[in-house]
């Protein structure tokens, strides 16, 4: 089992997510506001990244994720708007794992547990 999804998340995606989540924090939406910040650029919504992770899990392992699956996530670095995000699902030694990377770094630490339900 393996799957890799690559997405470039742009400002259009941020505006869609803002309307969906009622979150208009300028750190995600305003290039001017972020120009002088330590990141220098707007950052992607964390739950949007998790939604993409969930999409990969739902497509590949189905009910092992939606019925009894769990995920622990630590946000350890930013994902900048317009950068490429890769989400990779893999299996080794019977264990399914998932990771995300952007520009050669791992902005999330993800610990996945799947249930024994059939997909």
């Amino acid at each position, binding site marked *: 089992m393996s799957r890799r*999804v690559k*997405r470039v*998340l742009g*400002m259009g*995606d941020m*505006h*869609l*997510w*803002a*309307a*969906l*989540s*009622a*979150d*208009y*924090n*300028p750190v995600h*939406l*305003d*290039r*001017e*506001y972020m120009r002088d910040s330590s990141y220098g650029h707007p950052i992607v919504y*964390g*739950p*949007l990244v*998790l*939604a*993409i992770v*969930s*999409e990969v*899990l*739902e*497509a590949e392992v189905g*009910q092992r*994720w*939606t*019925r*009894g*699956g*769990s*995920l*622990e*996530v*630590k*946000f350890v670095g930013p994902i900048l708007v317009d950068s490429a995000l890769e989400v990779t699902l893999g299996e080794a030694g019977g264990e399914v794992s998932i990771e995300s990377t952007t520009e050669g770094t791992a902005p999330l630490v993800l610990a996945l547990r799947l249930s024994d339900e059939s997909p």
Partner: protein
Amino acid sequence: MTAEVPFWYETKATATVGDLGTGGRWEPFEVSPEDVERFREATGSELSARALPQGFVPVVGRLAYLAGRRMPPGGVLASLRWANHAPFPTDGRGLARAAVVRDYEKRGRRRIEVSVQLTDAGGSPVADLTYELVWPEGAP
């Protein structure tokens, strides 16, 4: 590009860190067809249109702890624990309950944990979430 903030957002009250949540009450939620379109476009979802993506869980959870208010400024999501019990309701409707379960200071930052439970409209569990949120010291 400058953020286009809708007028209604500016009229919302801003929550304080300590009062995030629904006060222990179960509150209804509903995902609209417009929400589904936005979600599918932003995530590039290729899942069946007959089911609602499980990725709605953390979105609905966040809306539950805000309870119709704006996020206290300066807060960031540090971690999330997400446990699924059942697929997201296909009718997009359900109930949510949210409460601050931990509120403390660490390394000069104010940290809280918010616990959220989601069920379908009939009360069957869908998911449990715990958000760890961090603010600068002295956040209200």
